[in-house]
């Protein structure tokens, strides 16, 4: 299929940490088409950011490694590119918006300088043209008085405006793929709504594909076509947003959906919450990573790893009891501490 822009197969990411190895990501698969949006959700520490960083080949040198896996982007084998070739891909074809907008802007340069530099590293352009482009990009992301604003420094911008600057930089080269790591978590709902609208309209215009990392399921329902659910380095479930909402199958996904507070959560009721905390990824886990918190776990869960199974077209689950011949009966109120 020619309109697949990104294919990730069996990606593993390891970190060296003092005496041990952290298996941060295990066997992640992604297929993303042109103009599609994929959401990655999951508990803190489950490997969402690490997956994105690996795709950009920005893992810390000498500490992070990719012992297994294949990443094909726009026909190119990403893991076999030279550093220089990869730099061209980054910024030109894949752009990333990082979790924290303050740390990713340089405080000593003006906002205009930073957009111009981003534009000029990747495109042949005179200084004057780059300046014009910077103003134009600020206007595109809805910053008022862009002619004045280009001369200002990051600390003179509000959190929402800084995030829009990051988006302006990321989009200045019309990337084919935009990776956004919690782009709106630090922002207010009103600013979040503005930024999500903005991303959608730019995607519409440029046919951009988006990977959206978030732990806000509302953002997923809002933005995404498909979603993968991660838990402790594994993809436990993936499918279209409609499937994951209407027919989720993995017990962790159930817990995640139930503990989300929505407007239907009755004021005063006890909230469902998954008891306990995620496993330490430095120790080998022989069975299912979710076993010690799963209310449905049986003996096999702590001894044998469940394999991913396509239970219906495009809907993949890794659970011993959710297979083509077997279904778990979902129980009410099991996620109560």
């Amino acid at each position, binding site marked *: 299929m020619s309109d697949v822009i990104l294919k990730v197969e069996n990606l593993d990411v390891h970190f060296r940490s003092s005496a041990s190895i952290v298996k941060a990501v295990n066997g992640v698969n992604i297929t993303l088409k042109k103009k599609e949006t994929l959401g990655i959700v999951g508990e803190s520490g489950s490997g969402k950011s690490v997956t994105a960083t690996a795709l950009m080949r920005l893992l810390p040198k000498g500490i992070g490694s990719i012992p297994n896996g294949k990443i094909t982007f726009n026909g190119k084998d990403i893991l076999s590119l030279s550093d220089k070739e990869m730099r061209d891909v980054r910024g030109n074809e894949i752009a990333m918006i990082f979790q924290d907008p303050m740390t990713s802007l340089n405080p000593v340069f003006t906002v205009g300088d930073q957009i111009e530099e981003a534009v000029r590293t990747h495109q042949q352009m005179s200084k004057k043209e780059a300046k014009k482009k910077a103003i134009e990009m600020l206007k595109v992301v809805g910053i008022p008085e862009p002619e004045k604003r280009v001369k200002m420094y990051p600390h003179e911008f509000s959190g929402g405006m800084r995030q829009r600057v990051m988006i302006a930089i990321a989009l200045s080269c019309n990337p084919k793929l935009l990776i956004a790591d919690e782009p709106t978590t630090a922002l207010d709902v009103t600013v979040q709504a503005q930024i999500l609208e903005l991303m959608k309209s730019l995607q519409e215009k440029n046919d951009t594909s988006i990977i959206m990392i978030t732990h806000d399921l509302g953002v997923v329902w809002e933005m995404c076509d498909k979603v993968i659910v991660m838990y402790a380095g594994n993809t436990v479930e993936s499918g279209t947003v409609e499937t994951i909402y209407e027919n989720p199958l993995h017990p962790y996904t159930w817990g995640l959906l139930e*503990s989300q*507070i929505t407007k239907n959560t009755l004021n005063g009721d006890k909230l469902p919450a998954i008891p306990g*905390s995620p496993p330490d990824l430095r120790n080998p886990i022989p069975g299912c990573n979710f076993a010690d918190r799963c209310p449905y776990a049986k003996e096999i869960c702590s001894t044998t790893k469940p394999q991913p199974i396509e239970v219906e077209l495009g809907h993949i689950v890794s659970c011993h009891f959710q297979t083509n011949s077997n279904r778990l009966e979902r129980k009410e109120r099991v996620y109560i501490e």
Partner: protein
Amino acid sequence: MSEVVIKVENLKKHFPINEAVPFKKSTQSVKAVDGVSFEVYKGETLGIVGESGCGKSTMARLINQLIRPTEGVVEFKGKNLATLGSKEIRSIRKSIQMVFQNPYASLDPRKTIEYLIAEPLAIHHIGDAKSRKKRVIELLEVVGLSGYHAERYVHEFSGGQRQRINIARALALNPDIIICDEPVSALDVSVQAQVINLLKDLQRKFDLTYIFISHDLNVVRYICDRIAVMYLGKIVEIGTYEELYENPKHPYTKALLSAIPKENPFDKKERILLEGDVPSPVNPPPGCSFHKRCPHAMEHCKKDVPAFVDLGETQKVACHLYS
């Protein structure tokens, strides 16, 4: 109506701006809190919502006596805090505790958990070493951690556990009221649910009053009895959670609620997208401070400050559409 624990009247906090201009005294100020009045009743949870920078944390610090108001009055159980001596203030401070947003930054990494939780007791000279230790173990258990954790250090705990430790610390002095400033914003969904359940249990058990600051409108709706909506240093609307969510009146409240992300993939949401950013609290717009972004702004909104009017028993709004 039950007992009033906190009463705030025309409270203002203006931070002067220190410009590095010699021989020129600063005349400008950030109007972080600019004339706020409300009451908090015993046993309730009052939510405070509003955009970043609208003055929520400043208000919390004013109530907790961490900073002094520029103008206005804070009363605790009928006593005007500005007129009290330092001894009385100290004893009232015990009754008003805070839990902060960032569970990573608010605990000293070099101290054991026992030290951190016992610290407020030590500061107020309560009990001896032995009785404090007993109290620490008791508090750890109250927040759902085992007593053996007392010997450990902060870095050995996850975000959710650290927030439990912060809560144990806030409970140490048997407060009447706890001000929670974004207590769950840094936590992910399942940990957030654990901490919220804990806060609710403790409220029931110890008859606590909460002021709950958050920008997650679903969380606020779930946990609060009444909610105050702030915009640029002022409260623009206050009411019970049903009133505010079922029948919001102020155009800003409506925009805020419409910005909550979808409930499910099939949800078709009508959005009121606000233009522009929050105006500067240094030069707030004249008249209604929301008029530059308000889809309903009328001529007199640009000149006259709307009064806070009663719309019934509990709901109040400051908007010319209702005056």
